[in-house]
């Protein structure tokens, strides 16, 4: 009932609205979808969204995995709880405040530019804020923590006997990690990666605040249709397309997870 009321029904309503036209005339039409594929600026928004989200997901995994491994393997058990609390601290701050903080840190007169200039690494401040780099940074800051938690949980569930068995069979630490630990923690990586992908690709706030509107991502394109014109049919069509991308990502993740389980 919950899923029906809060997912299926709104989804069907949105799908129907996406097949109507903004001027209210005519019956059901695919014009909004045709409009998306016919306008390079619109398709570019999807490309931008995919690029940013994939970069964020990959960078977050690369940073989160060693972090989770250190937490699970190198930190003594009694300190792990405190370390985890410290790791998730960014979750406790306002999303908007955190984004604006990054903007200030990366601004022309911000901490990063000032430090680089004082160290003599750059002669003049460079543009870090209001770029894709800033958007990715803001996202990664958040999602590294999310991925760390899922991978950490997976690593903690891993029985030490797997590694002992690998060692008994002559595998060194690197080989054990690549052929035993990494494959067994793949479900944790995929769960975190999927969550990262879904949350990042649908996020409006981070690219809007940090990206400086120097490129449009799908959520921004959707909001643009609503702000003044109130073009809900086109906004719905764009949202359905975004959901289609998320569905594909889910199917891809599910397939991987299934293979791993097998």
């Amino acid at each position, binding site marked *: 009932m919950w899923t029906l009321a809060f997912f299926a029904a709104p989804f069907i309503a949105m799908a129907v609205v996406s097949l109507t036209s*903004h*001027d209210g005339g005519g019956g059901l039409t695919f014009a909004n979808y045709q409009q998306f594929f016919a*306008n390079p*600026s*619109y398709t*570019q*928004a999807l490309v*931008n969204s995919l690029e940013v989200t994939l970069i964020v997901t990959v960078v977050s995994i690369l940073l989160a995995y060693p972090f989770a491994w250190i937490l699970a393997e190198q930190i003594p058990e009694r300190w792990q709880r405190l370390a985890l609390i410290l790791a998730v601290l960014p979750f406790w701050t306002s999303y908007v405040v955190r984004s604006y903080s990054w903007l200030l840190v990366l*601004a*022309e*007169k911000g901490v990063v530019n000032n430090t680089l200039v004082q160290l003599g690494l750059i002669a003049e401040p460079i*543009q870090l*804020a*209001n770029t894709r780099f800033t958007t990715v940074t803001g996202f990664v800051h958040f999602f590294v923590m999310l991925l760390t938690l899922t991978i950490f949980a997976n690593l903690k569930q891993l029985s030490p006997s797997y590694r002992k068995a690998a060692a008994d069979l002559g595998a060194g630490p690197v080989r054990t990690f690549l052929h035993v630990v990494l494959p067994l923690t793949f479900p944790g990586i995929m769960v975190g990666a999927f969550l990262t992908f879904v949350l990042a690709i649908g996020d409006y706030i981070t690219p*809007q*605040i940090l990206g*400086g*509107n*120097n*490129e*449009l991502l799908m959520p921004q*394109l959707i909001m*643009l*249709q*609503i*702000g*003044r*014109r*109130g*073009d*809900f049919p086109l906004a719905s069509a764009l949202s359905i397309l975004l959901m289609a991308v998320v569905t594909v990502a889910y199917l891809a993740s599910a397939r991987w997870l299934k293979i791993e389980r097998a």
Partner: protein
Amino acid sequence: MKSLSGALRKLALSATALIGLALSPAFAEDINALVWCDHSDPNFLKPFEDATGIKVNVKEFEGTGAGLAILDQSQPGEWDVMVIDSVDVRRGVDKKLFEPLPEDKLPFGDLYKEVTLDAFTKIDGKRYGITEKFGYNTIGFNNTKVDPADMQSLQSLVGDKYKGRIAIYDYYLPVIGMAALAAGKKTAELTEADLPAIKEVLLKMKANAKLVGEVTASQTALATGEVDILVGGGEWVTAGLAKENPALDFSIPKEGGILWSQSLAMLSASQKKDAALKFIQYVLSPEGQARLATSSCYWGMPANQKAALTDEQKKVLRYDDQPDFLARAQLYPAPDEKLDKQMQDVWTEMLQAQ
């Protein structure tokens, strides 16, 4: 002991609740207003509430489309008053949302004639919107970082001199209006045929811009020195920051600026039309106008020439320059549905341009 402490706790909570009720002002009536952020300032609302006993419950929105969507999703009679772009009043009238306003009970004679925009606010001889505040989308700048003489021409925005030092206000209509002025066109006569020239100007502006930001982002960028020029800026950006940063300034270049104008409308389904009218009368009164003009969210020129502004506030708002500014300002673009969509697509293309 446990039951005693529980009883004491209940008693303490009840007493606190009673004290809270006693301290909170009692309102005889309340109205619901869909507003822009400048109307949420307690310094603006409280004097009205204290004087009339009418509580004003506000909900902020941005963009006419979003505002009309809220009305669509609400029960009839839920909202009493709405703030709307003057050029968009007709959109509400077409949906039969607005009530004609009694001109004889409002100070129309005291308003700047140039900002009432009768073509948009008066339909079939009935007035549905009354202008409460106006200003200009033009060039906002830091006068210690740029040559103020350069800010007298829109061509400075498309040349190389200020490359990387410009922010663009993220709202397509006024900035497209400015691009039209830079291309030598009149905003009141824009057609589809003008869009290529407008796009060319927009792309040049974008190439010079560091960011395209909404109100807060663009204001912050100018105030913190991240950029020195704000395309689409004006008194709404600089006046409120004048005390902290007197170097922030704005110009109406020789090509002109874009006149923005916000109106108040009464909802036809309102069950509290008398209270709603009292609120509109307050907003248009000299005191209400001064408070709205200097709201903490953003400043703007009061539509009523008798607004009770201090000399300092008038100076910051360039009160004495208004006749000249108004003479040189051009109309906010008011495209029909088809042209509006085309303009938004040009804007989208500009945003995506690298």
